[in-house]
């Protein structure tokens, strides 16, 4: 072959197989009774990362300053990397021969399990930053708890993701504060973003049978336990940002976790899945 070496390691598959074989034994992964809930729950975490990562990646090349282009790409990269880990585990739990890519690229909207907040359009940077903050504040608490999960596989992924998400939260909190307490215009935009996103922010805390099943199995925390910490982070940051917490329910728009989405998700998937749908079975 000419002077250009192949970017793909020829023995990548062998390496991956060996790594999988060495993986710690996790009884939860093969637990038949738990399987439907565990699978669904892994899709929820993986899909949140996938869809938010996708939205954030839309900014690439269009951010207001070069440093933001780089930072947004970084966040998107982290989230897509996390997607790969969560959806790979979901596929393994499901045990039907599907891969993370199959789950990402070949499910239709009703099978997606992300919350509605992350599929909302980017809007201006105010909306993008506020959406990120509201999600990061939850994501950080979730992963902190999951890093102590009784499922070693879940704990392992969570510990990796937590390092990244701690940074995401630091960054989005900082931007909310600086823009909230910046100019009159940046303040107004941040308040408008908060008002618009608030009714979507609480969906993650509304527990259903799936959440309860994984909590009972010791895999995940009970969602209501995460809420006080989220509330505290949000209150502190909004206060410093001189923004006002909307006087309205934060769990108005729910259902994404069960596959009932906004109209926006279909368009995201139409774009994201285009090549896999147009050329079934091709390798990329």
């Amino acid at each position, binding site marked *: 072959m000419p002077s250009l070496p192949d970017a793909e390691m020829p023995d990548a598959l062998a390496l991956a197989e060996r790594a999988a074989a060495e993986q710690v034994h996790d009884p939860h992964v093969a637990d038949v009774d738990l399987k439907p809930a565990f699978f669904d729950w892994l899709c929820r975490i993986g899909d949140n990362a996938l869809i938010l990562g996708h939205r954030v990646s839309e900014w690439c090349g269009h951010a207001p300053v070069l440093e933001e282009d780089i930072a947004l790409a970084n966040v998107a990269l982290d989230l*897509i990397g996390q997607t790969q880990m969560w959806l790979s585990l979901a596929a393994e739990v499901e045990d039907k021969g599907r891969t993370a890519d199959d789950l990402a690229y070949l499910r239709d909207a009703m099978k997606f399990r992300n919350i509605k907040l992350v599929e909302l359009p980017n809007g201006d940077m105010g909306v993008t930053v506020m959406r990120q903050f509201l999600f990061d504040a939850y994501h950080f608490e979730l992963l902190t708890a999951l890093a102590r999960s009784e499922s070693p596989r879940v704990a392992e992924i969570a510990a990796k993701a937590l390092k990244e998400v701690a940074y995401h939260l630091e960054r989005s909190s900082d931007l909310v504060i600086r823009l909230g307490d*910046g100019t009159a215009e940046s303040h107004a935009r941040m308040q408008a973003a908060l008002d618009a996103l608030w009714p979507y922010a609480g969906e993650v805390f509304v527990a259903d049978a799936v959440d309860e099943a994984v909590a009972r199995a010791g895999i995940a925390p009970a969602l209501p336990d995460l809420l006080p910490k989220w509330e505290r982070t949000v209150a502190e940051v909004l206060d410093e940002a001189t923004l006002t917490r909307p006087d309205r329910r934060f769990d108005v728009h729910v259902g994404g976790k069960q596959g009932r989405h906004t109209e926006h998700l279909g368009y995201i998937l139409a774009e994201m899945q285009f090549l896999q749908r147009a050329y079934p079975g091709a390798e990329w």
Partner: protein
Amino acid sequence: MYAQMVKSEGKTDRAEMSPEERAFQDRIDANEKIEPKDWMPDGYRKTLIRQIGQHAHSEIVGQLPEGNWITRAPTLERKQILLAKVQDEAGHGLYLYCAAETLGVSRDELFEKLHSGAMKYSSIFNYPTLTWADMGAVGWLVDGAAIMNQVPLQRTSYGPYARAMVRICKEESFHQRQGYAVMMRMAFGTPEQKEMAQDALNRFWYPSLMMFGPSDKDSVHSAQSMAWRIKMNTNDELRQKFVDETVPQAEYLGLTVPDETLKWNEERGHYDFAEPDWEEFFEVLKGNGPCNDERLAARRKAWDDGEWFREGLSAYADKAAARRAASDLAAE
């Protein structure tokens, strides 16, 4: 290249030079690095600002054609690789704007010149990316052509520029490899994929050759820039090197370079190849390429829409500084 047709001003004739200019040229000839605080001829500074600025703008505008496919990348892995690549290009822009700043021109000033059309970026980014195979072709050919030029620029005379190039070159070879990897998947894939790969090569071949700038005989500014070691090779040298390296890579892929005259010349030890359509090149530079208007509009929109964001951040920084000063005062 990323910097094409950079206008260079100065004197190459030693007899015309002032003593300072002669001493400066001696340092360059002795392969010394020129640093920001050193004396330099006005023409050297101006030419460098133009060249580094054009290069920086190319990195930034260059995010757009590939950014166009990030949301449609066909696998999670490809999406990550492409994101990382485009992020690198933004980073390259940043290094280069910083290098230009050492010559006394701010990033904002350079942006303004890009947005007003007073400064250019590489012609290549005015071509559209139409299929996924273009993500292969861009990495393979466009980054490949960029590498040809940037590797020698690591030894350029201006210190900050040379150091920026060292960092950039480390990342560029990953860019080219990921592009070639995409191309391999496509060329060895289904008939539809192979068709896309061939079409991408057909569309990007000549625009890639144009990246090196006009033929040496029409390249009026080369001599001065080469004397200053801010241009290390002639356009034709680099173009030939690129063709010689790329043709076997295309053959390996089983793709046909869209040039019927392409032939190995045993005597020269190089490929003979057809020149690109220089009229098209000059039209693209004038703003008449397929995507000039869109690319510039996208950059202007990003800048204009981001104004409140930038102002918000700087207003906060001012307030924070004032608060710190007030609390220092109170502490005294």
